């Protein structure tokens, strides 16, 4: 069973028990184009603490890996658009998650790569301040991690 499906089960039971309204996990799943689409990792995305994000992913024991390559600027001249490209060379990479440690909500994205999708990830994120970004890769059920410091500057003359 993969990471997100497990979460799906856990979350739907939470939703069921608490009767959470609004953006309900169950609703999301029902509206997604495929029954396989993951449910939103609410505890992870709404957490303000990196450790709790890791817990939500089940990645507390992630091992550092040199097989995760992060291509991102050392200095970003605009915190509103920080491009981050990740390539994993770890066999059987299943998912990639991105954490900007000093953001108000550190977990920025998590992506499950299935059925031929390469262990590759690219997205642009907002960063409020200079911070370390952490990448978590799940492969063969185990978690691996790599990180990079990105300095955010105020460009222009200001």
């Amino acid at each position: 069973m993969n990471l997100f499906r497990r979460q799906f089960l856990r979350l739907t039971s939470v939703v069921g028990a608490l009767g959470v309204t609004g953006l309900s996990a169950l609703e999301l799943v029902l509206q997604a184009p495929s029954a396989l689409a993951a449910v939103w990792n609410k505890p992870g995305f709404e957490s303000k603490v990196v450790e709790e994000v890791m817990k939500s992913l089940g990645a507390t024991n992630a091992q550092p890996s040199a097989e995760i390559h992060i291509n991102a600027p050392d200095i970003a001249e605009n915190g509103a658009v920080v491009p981050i490209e990740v390539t994993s060379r770890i066999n059987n990479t299943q998912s990639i998650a991105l954490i900007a440690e000093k953001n108000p909500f550190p977990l920025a994205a998590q992506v499950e790569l299935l059925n031929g999708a390469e262990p590759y990830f690219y997205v642009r994120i907002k960063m409020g301040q200079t911070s370390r970004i952490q990448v978590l890769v799940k492969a063969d059920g185990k978690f691996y991690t790599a990180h990079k410091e990105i300095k955010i500057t105020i460009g222009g003359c200001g």
Partner: protein
Amino acid sequence: MKAITDQWVRGYRLGAIPLLLFFSACSQWTASFIDVRSNAETMVMGAYSATPELNQRAVQDPSQKICSLMPDESLTQDQMTFVTDAAKHSVSYPNSGHLTGDWKKGAELVADGTGQRIVNGQIEKLARNGALCNNCHQIDPKEVNAGNLGPSLVGYAKLRGRSETVIRYTYEKIYNAWAFLPCSNMPRLGANHFLTPEQIADVVAYLTDPQSPVNAP
């Protein structure tokens, strides 16, 4: 006030554009007929709709006029003397008589690129203007966000010492750079009332104090 506004508007209306329309019927040589320089001034008057006081910023003082050199022009000896003399006479000093202030205050000023900008007719509300230095100069060797329009000032006092002559030169250079190099790119920060004499003294301290990161070993 009203009179100035009227003059502003009238200046534009009576300006070169209607004249150009008249000439445009003629031929290729129109451009050589009309005085493009006064046409440029007319356009400046038509480009801004702020209060007369703010519009006045776009009007050139005699030194700015001289310093607006076109690529094929160079300063005459008389112009050079005029600009330099005007600059030397402009300099005033802090009431305290001290040309060096607090280098830590100077550090904040140097990194600050804001002040006196206008949006929707309003000048930005700030406690003080920044000194804008890092826009163009590398000064603290560790500052990443620094420009290079001006020379690097890293190790300023290590290279020059901090004699009274150096300190006086530094103060006056920031106050009015044109006193030393007429028409240089550097703004006349003191003479244009962008910085106060006390703020300039703080920046001088930042450049020359042995404790300042600028002069770190």
